[in-house]
């Protein structure tokens, strides 16, 4: 939460105070304006939500934090792939595959065994999607087409592993992600820590390591990156493998929340939609090379958070879905108009 208050302060010129500092504040605002804006919006929504419902406490905090986990992981994975110049329309199917593999092999197992299965699932998904990245690079077929085809293959594989909803996991594993052995409770720290740690790790890898910077370089101009010595095959495979590993984490979070696996492909398709919407709302350009995963995480939480807000406002689920879609379009329209005005001004 402290990051939110820090950013609230930065948007307030009075707090910026001293003159020597004002320029760097302004620079921060210009460079990270969209990211800061999304976090401020999330903070405002939480404050507003707390006035909407009769009692807002740790149970609600825990519920919001844990239920937004799968989408946060998917948005992180999609963000890495899109920043490197790709797009993955199978990421939701991968989440479903990860959750059903986990559900099948974690069922009735002790905590240590479920942990080992969890690590295995993440590695498996990284390898599967790394292979998809290799296919994209080798075949020269556009990312969107390859991942559309692999989304069929992966959801077929999920159905093959677990033909009907079922399976399970250990109580300790559920507590690790949700803070409760039954998947819902008052303890909101575990999910918030999971979100904070994974966001920080991915952001640091992207911004501070050679590999991460090379992903930005390839996404913004692959020819220039290639000419300055960045391996295109390597970055494609790396970005897809990281995306796959994060989709695996999303699958693990799903089974920790629900306690069983669900192989339906429609779950995956919907999750893919939300992951793409989250990163675009979070300020990442679908053309690649632009944006930060920090904004995408806030947008992912907001996208999930709209559901409880709209239901607290007494909208039925169908109307809520319509409003959510309209809001996404309106935000993107405003962003499009701002972009056009900025380009005219230049």
């Amino acid at each position, binding site marked *: 939460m402290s990051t939110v208050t820090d950013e609230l302060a930065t948007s307030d010129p009075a707090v910026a105070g001293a003159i020597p500092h004002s320029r760097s504040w302004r620079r921060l605002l210009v460079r990270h304006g969209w990211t800061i804006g999304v976090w401020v919006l999330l903070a405002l929504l939480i404050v507003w939500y707390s006035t909407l419902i009769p009692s807002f406490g740790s149970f609600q905090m825990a519920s919001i934090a844990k239920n937004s986990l799968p989408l946060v992981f998917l948005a992180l994975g999609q963000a890495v792939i899109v920043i490197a110049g790709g797009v993955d329309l199978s990421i939701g199917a991968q989440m479903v595959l990860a959750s059903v593999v986990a559900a099948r092999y974690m069922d009735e197992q002790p905590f240590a065994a479920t942990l080992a299965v969890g690590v295995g699932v993440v590695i498996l998904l990284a390898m599967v999607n790394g292979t998809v990245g290799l296919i994209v690079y080798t075949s020269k077929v556009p990312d969107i087409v390859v991942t559309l085809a692999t989304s069929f293959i992966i959801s077929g594989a999920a159905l093959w592993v677990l033909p009907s909803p079922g399976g399970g996991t250990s109580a300790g594993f559920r507590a690790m992600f949700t803070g409760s052995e039954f998947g819902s409770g008052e303890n909101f720290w575990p999910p918030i820590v999971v979100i904070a740690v994974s966001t920080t790790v991915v952001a640091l890898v992207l911004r501070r390591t050679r590999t991460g910077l090379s992903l930005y370089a390839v996404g913004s101009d692959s020819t220039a990156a290639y000419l300055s010595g960045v391996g295109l095959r390597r970055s494609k495979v790396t970005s897809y493998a990281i995306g796959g590993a994060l989709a695996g984490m999303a699958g693990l979070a799903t089974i920790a929340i629900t306690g069983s696996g669900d192989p339906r492909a429609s779950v995956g398709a919907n999750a893919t*939609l939300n992951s793409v919407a989250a990163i675009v709302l979070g300020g990442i350009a679908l053309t690649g090379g632009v944006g930060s995963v920090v904004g995408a995480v806030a947008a992912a939480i907001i996208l999930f958070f709209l559901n409880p807000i709209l239901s607290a406002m007494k909208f039925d689920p169908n109307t809520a879905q319509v409003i959510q*879609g309209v809001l996404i379009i309106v935000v993107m329209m405003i962003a499009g108009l701002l972009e056009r005005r900025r380009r005219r001004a230049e």
Partner: protein
Amino acid sequence: MSSQVSVAARPASPEGPPPATLATRLVDHPNIVLTGVLVLLILVTGAIEPDYLSISGLRNTLLLAAPLGIMAAGQTILMLTGGIDLSVAMIATGAAYVAGNQSSSGAAIAIAAGLLVGLLAGSANGVGVGVFNVNPLIMTLAMAAILLGLFTAWTQTWLQGSTAVAPFIKELGGGSFFGNRVPYNVIVWIGVTLAVVGVLRRTGLGRLIYAIGDNAVAVRLAGVRTWQVTIVVYAFAGVLAAIAGILLAGRTGAVDLQLASTFLLPSVAAAVIGGTSIFGGVGTYTGTVLGALILSVLNSMLTFLDAGQAVQQMIYGSIVLALAWAYARVVGAR
């Protein structure tokens, strides 16, 4: 190696272009390769299920292929401009619902009402993409979510119980003539094919569609109001999706919210297999027609294999991927 060959060939060149080998001819006309793939798939399917190689077997494939081909027509036009529409399946379902709802007031009004749904949703997509520069992927995904929410809510209110379909639409979507050999929906598909090919090849709009996909900035600087073209093509794609939805409703004889959902990915895949570039500017509708036929035969084949849904999906995805890969190699060799 290659330079030596060209030197050796030079003396012959004044007499005309070097003789086309079979390989270069195939590379220049990928549709020949696609037709070969189609025939091969039909024969393989016939080997699995001998009854398939009959009038009724092929008729069933055509019955499947027509709605897919019509939906893929809209997708092809959009992909030529560099766009994409992931709301076609929901537009088709919505159009089918509204057409079913209006069935009591006659087939003409029912069909017109259904097409109106496609026109409205498609135009909204076009305004978002063309005027407000929203990314087409986001715009149409959000549109699909909005339509799903609206129609789920409406099936409990004014669309309640409108799952039956007018007899004429039933005949159009599922019936056949000429001694039960040729389905009626193929007539609609042929009409759509003529219209789409005609627009793309013979009209200024067709040339603009290719030009925008090739270089939108250049087209705008040349004085074209590209946003108007964008709105028109998205509206057109919406209407085509609505036609496909009405035909689907006629074939199944009933409407539900999942009516067209299985057609979304194949509509993109048909265009891609048929050689339309997802980045715009390259492709033909005749290629997409072949792509739609190939996917429909593949569907029949997987049904005959009786391998279970999981294995079917995996084989389907693998073959789509293999075809797209092979196509990229053939075209890349040019």
